[in-house]
């Protein structure tokens, strides 16, 4: 029901409508993979449907991302890549019907979207929305301070925040006037993507899911944005990229490439999968 009393949380709060399984704390110890690095994100058997229509989109996704890793997900249009991304950050359009997801060992689906963000999960949206009337700098500062507060750090006043954000603007080669504009309002497609990465830079999230950051970017912009993403990498951070093209992956090299098909990850490999795709399209993969 739209517009009911405030606090009605459609974004998958505790007990809302996802099936709760026992939380599986994930420790890296004893893992056979990734040189014993701790697991950051672990998705098991994830199924989800569109809340409004009941149409099932995700049909059992399994995915494990460890600290420091770069992953890519590729797949045909409509295979469910954006849906997976949005379900992980708690988008209210979807209902989780089965499976689990843990992030830093915590049950992701027991957390509000803002708590997932505080914990360090970030999604760069495929189509970022515009928020007329809210200035970009205010929005960025609210976001930054919300995370700082959750970590018990002092909030930044406008001046301190300005000092915090300017180097990040420079890294992204963004003009400071973008700060005074309204969030994404009138931004070009490429500018919106840059602005998403600016938010990532400000939040210093550990796990970034980048849904087609390469779409809408010109050749120079792609290089700038990829350089910024690489610059933000730390040993304890991970990147999950959704993309259709090799171009991006040449800049940000993934260790793992996953192929999504009809709501499931059907193949996992390395860059060789990408080369195969570029050469012969998805048909070559399914017959492989």
């Amino acid at each position, binding site marked *: 029901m739209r517009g009911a009393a405030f606090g009605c949380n459609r974004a998958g709060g505790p007990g809302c409508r996802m099936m709760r399984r026992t939380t599986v704390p994930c420790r890296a110890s004893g893992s056979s993979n990734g040189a014993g690095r701790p697991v950051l994100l672990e998705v098991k058997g994830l199924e989800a449907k569109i809340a409004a229509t009941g149409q099932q989109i995700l049909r059992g996704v399994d995915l494990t991302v460890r600290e420091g890793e770069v992953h890519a997900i590729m797949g045909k249009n409509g295979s469910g890549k954006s849906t997976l991304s949005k379900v992980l950050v708690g988008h209210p359009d979807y209902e989780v019907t089965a499976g689990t997801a843990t992030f830093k060992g915590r049950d992701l689906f027991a957390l509000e979207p803002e708590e997932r963000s505080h914990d360090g999960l970030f999604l760069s949206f495929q189509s970022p929305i515009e928020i007329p*009337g*809210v200035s970009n700098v205010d929005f960025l500062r609210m976001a930054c301070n919300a995370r700082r507060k959750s970590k018990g750090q002092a909030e930044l006043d406008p001046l301190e925040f300005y000092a915090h954000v300017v180097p990040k603007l420079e890294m992204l080669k963004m003009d400071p006037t973008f700060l005074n504009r309204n969030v994404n309002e009138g931004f070009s497609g490429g500018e919106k993507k840059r602005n998403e990465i600016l938010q990532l830079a400000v939040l210093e999230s550990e796990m970034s899911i980048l849904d087609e950051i390469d779409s809408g970017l010109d050749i120079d912009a792609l290089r700038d944005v990829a350089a910024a993403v690489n610059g933000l990498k730390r040993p304890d951070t991970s990147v999950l990229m959704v993309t259709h093209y090799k171009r991006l992956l040449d800049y940000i090299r993934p260790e793992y490439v996953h192929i999504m098909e009809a709501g499931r990850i059907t193949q996992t490999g390395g860059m060789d999968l990408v080369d195969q795709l570029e050469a012969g399209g998805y048909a070559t993969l399914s017959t492989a």
Partner: protein
Amino acid sequence: MSYGVMQRSRCSAGCRGARPSATTLSRRAPAPLRANAPAVSASAVEDAWIRANVAEPAAPSPVAGLAALRSSCSEALASLRMPTTRNEEYRFTDVAALTSAKLARPTAAAAVDAALLDSLRFPEAGGSAAVLVDGVLRPELSDLASLPRGAYVGGAAGAPAAALERLGHLSNARGGPFAVVNGVLAGDAVVVVLPDGARLARPLHIIHVASGAGAGQGALSASAPRLLVALGRGAEAEVVEEFVSADSGATAVFAVAEVLLGPGASLKHGYVQREAAGSVHLKSTLVDQAEGSSYNLVEARVGGGLSRHDVGVAQCGPDTATRMRHFLLAGAGQLQDLHSKLVLDHPRGEAEQLHKCIVSHASGRGVFDGNVKVNRLAQKTDAGQLSRNLLLVPRATVNVKPNLQIIADDVKCTHGAAISDLSEEELFYFRARGIPAEVARQSLVYSFGAEVVQALRYDRLVARIQADVVAALQVAEASIAGASK
């Protein structure tokens, strides 16, 4: 602490597809005009409230244009009746706050606090500010040093005769009852005339101060500011009218603006109403646009008690553009009414209207009746109309009737009305960035009107309107929190 934002059920006009409005104000044949005297003696006036409060003639004006205006309006007064909610045009707008009060007329020029005026000025309009107190231009408080050669900005006395002659033409023909009241009471008019091709380098800031002089004992101090803007062929200007009260006392303001745009002329018209709580503010804006001209209105009304704006725009030639954006905030005891009529009669017209209204208190009400009429000859027209309303508390009410009538067949028109909660998609974007739902909600409420208010562009002006909005919403928030304890 926070708002309950709900969809309310009382969109009583049905939002869309409602029946077209009909003007049903009773105005009968005018009484014959007699020379040399008040046109109509007070005793001949039908409506008792008008007879007691308006009909007494003001001191005769030595300025020909004003005298003619007064005489034609006095004549119309005889058969005019104050509207009631039985009049279609006033169905949701009860003017009892006015008709149960007595009007007092400020006689002498009231003193105005210099600090108030200083607080209102903004640097972009330096050397381009006209101050009216109780409807009379006060040169000693105004600063019009930056006007270009050939332009006239000043009071009625001294204005170009050709312009003065047109004073009252639009408002007499298309204005409502309160435009008639203005015509009777107006002691002056600000006249802005730009010759062909002229351009005002700076925005002209017109500060309308209601002094409250003469009020007391249930009487509202009444004034009738009037503006006439006449732009020649290709002339360009920006005029920002700002209505304020000298102090916290309620007043009654009957304002009229007439705008005549020559071919290819362009006017940006800002209109800001920040009057004291409980004030009666009734404004008419009438615009005639010649071919190729552009009229761009940005309106923000956050003050007053009973506040209504009647805007009538006529596109009188092809390739004419009209854009109107309105933001209204109705808090405790406030009614914010917007009635607009836009007529497109010629090919390739453009019209765009955005109405946004927040009702933040159970005793607040928003009213919108927006009529856009695309006539048969107005082919290839592009018209859009949108009304978005945010009701923050139970029993908050809006009556909205966006009304797009299309008679031409080759037109592109969109319209809609939303009585809404905040956008879920927007709320989620905040939350995905870690901003808690409540903070997001607040920020979105504050910014709801900003989309319109920011179009006024000048930082100091925008900031004080936003400060009014924040203050009003904080009051609303406190009362909600108090009530839920």
